[in-house]
């Protein structure tokens, strides 16, 4: 159950429909300072990062006045985007909620237990209702399209007429009563004035009484609007289509959610490894602090999820989802594996091709470019590292050659074992059974080199095992 596509839906819908909604009080004059357009978007965005949240906490986090927030939330409740719950509770009740919050946010939530008084307080909680949001947005789009199309085709619309004098409205059902025997217009029942067809519901008023030219212009305008709507709301519609078959994240009622979150929190404390996935999915949904990178815990989820693939197949739609999926996260993981393998000296190309192949379809080309760049860097580092080791070995080899010259008497011994002798410290010699016979001889001359090499025992050992051959050739 991934919330991310739904969150994206909410964000798109917020920007599409609630961008210029202003929540001003009835008595407040609209000044520049009180112009709070865009606040609705901010609040919705904040809610996508949370599950159930107490409205005061949300206000605090957003640095909004709680009244202002409440007004907006009430508006969203009417718009069916948000479910709210009010209950009278003591500090204890609040604590249950705080505990639930703490459980979902992995204990990062700042404790608010101390603030509650012993009195009963009415607290309001709110939460996004994703299932309903999906329906509401779909319905809204449907209505918009239908209205425009109906007007465009003049289909199934009951013509309305309005009296220019007294403002009385009629529709075509009244036509029978409105005809006058004298001329070919409809006349008002009250004042006997000529009625005007109210045809320009959406088009501008100046087009007048719907003669043909005006009608044509109106239709062009409507068609334009329809087209513009299609283009501008395309991301939203795409997102709707994407979300269509996904399971809707359901938080349940406040009580149910609290109980669940608390249980999950306890379970997580018990064995964090076991339900890591569930915890992470909750953790990213709720953030104590509205940090943009809170979603990063979900990188693994997003990688395996189908929705990410779909999302990224559309180049223009991926902007926000890409933010949640930090590319450096993955690369770091790959670096680690490479370093591990680098010690064993595997060629980097192979493992590199294997890991990103899973990712490459997930990722955008941009990320691939970045990865390529990183590849090159890594390859360079590895090559450098390899060269460094080689050089060390060569140096040692030279030293050993000198030793060999000195200890020519040991000639029948095979070179590799000879070299090992040169490398190994005295402490390790007794472990080697086969070297026992000639052990004593080389130690005489090379005690200092042993000591020097002592530091590199590990690295040399691994290097030696592989480098036997080229060393022999040299």
């Amino acid at each position, binding site marked *: 159950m991934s919330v991310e596509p739904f969150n994206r839906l909410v964000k798109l819908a917020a920007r599409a429909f609630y961008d210029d909604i202003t929540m001003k009080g009835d008595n407040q004059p609209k000044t520049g300072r009180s112009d709070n357009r865009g606040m609705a978007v901010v609040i919705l965005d904040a809610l996508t990062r949370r599950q159930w949240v107490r409205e005061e906490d949300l206000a605090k986090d957003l640095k909004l006045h709680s009244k202002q927030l409440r007004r907006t939330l009430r508006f969203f409740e009417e718009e069916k985007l948000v479910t709210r719950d009010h209950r009278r509770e003591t500090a204890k009740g609040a604590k249950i909620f705080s505990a639930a919050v703490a459980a979902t946010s992995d204990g990062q939530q700042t404790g608010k237990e101390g603030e509650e008084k012993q009195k009963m307080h009415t607290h309001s909680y709110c939460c996004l209702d994703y299932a309903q949001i999906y329906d509401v947005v779909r319905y809204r789009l449907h209505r918009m399209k239908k209205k425009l199309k109906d007007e465009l085709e003049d289909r*199934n619309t009951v013509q309305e007429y309005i009296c220019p004098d007294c403002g009385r409205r009629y529709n075509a059902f009244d036509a029978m009563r409105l005809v006058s025997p004298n001329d070919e217009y409809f006349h008002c029942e009250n004042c006997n004035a000529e009625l005007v067809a109210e045809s320009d519901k959406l088009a501008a008023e100046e087009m007048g009484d719907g003669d043909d030219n005006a009608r044509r212009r109106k239709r062009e305008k409507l068609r334009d609007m329809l087209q513009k709507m299609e283009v501008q709301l395309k991301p939203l519609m795409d997102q709707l289509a994407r979300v269509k078959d996904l399971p809707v994240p359901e938080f349940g009622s406040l009580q149910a959610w609290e109980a669940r979150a608390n249980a999950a929190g306890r379970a997580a404390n018990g064995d964090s490894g076991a339900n890591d996935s569930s915890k992470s999915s909750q953790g990213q949904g709720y953030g104590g602090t509205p940090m943009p990178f809170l979603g990063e815990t979900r990188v693994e989820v997003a990688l395996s999820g189908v929705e990410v693939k779909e999302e990224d197949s559309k180049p223009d739609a991926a902007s926000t989802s890409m933010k949640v999926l930090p590319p450096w996260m993955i690369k770091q993981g790959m670096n680690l594996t490479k370093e591990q393998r680098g010690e064993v000296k595997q060629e980097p190309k192979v493992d590199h091709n294997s890991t990103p192949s899973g990712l490459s379809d997930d990722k955008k080309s941009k990320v691939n470019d970045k990865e390529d760049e990183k590849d090159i860097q890594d390859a360079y580092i590895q090559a450098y590292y390899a060269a460094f080791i080689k050089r060390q070995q060569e140096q040692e080899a030279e030293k050993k050659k000198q030793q060999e010259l000195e200890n020519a008497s040991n000639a029948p011994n095979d070179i590799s074992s000879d070299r090992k002798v040169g490398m190994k410290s005295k402490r390790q010699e007794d472990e080697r059974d086969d070297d026992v016979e000639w052990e004593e001889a080389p130690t005489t001359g090379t005690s200092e080199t042993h000591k020097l090499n002592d530091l590199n025992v590990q690295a040399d050992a691994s290097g030696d095992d592989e480098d036997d051959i080229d060393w022999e050739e040299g």
Partner: protein
Amino acid sequence: MFFHIVLERNMQLHPRHFGPNLRDKLVAKLMKDVEGTCSGRHGFVVAITGVDNIGKGLIRDGTGFVTFPVKYQCVVFRPFKGEILEAVVTMVNKMGFFAEAGPVQIFVSNHLIPDDMEFQSGDMPNYTTSDGSVKIQKDSEVRLKIIGTRVDATEIFCIGTIKDDFLGVINDPGAAA
């Protein structure tokens, strides 16, 4: 749309009809009373096709009238939204035209007339295409689609459109005139 249904009605019969052909008188009076009326619920009663049952009469105190409960079969006509009807144009004006399909009045407003038809005022107001090949005037027969009905207790009024495929004039206006 036409329906054949059974309705019931309480008929009041004057005492002077009491006699050997009381039943015939009752049916005749039923037809006279009911046919051509409109009820919002069932639509227009077109014709009575039979009388099922005449109940026991009840003599009214004072007047001597007798009330019979009568069950009868009848054909009713009820227009529906979306229905296609053929109608005769009764009046044309700048706002559109009125047509009748049997007892039903239908109004087609000018924005539900195809855009290529223009209103021509004059002695015989009409809507005509630019090439003059199609003309809607009084007594033209048109096929239209009902897009809305207003059903009152005693009256049904419809709004129609001819702005759709296969709708419009279905006869030669010259021949009709």
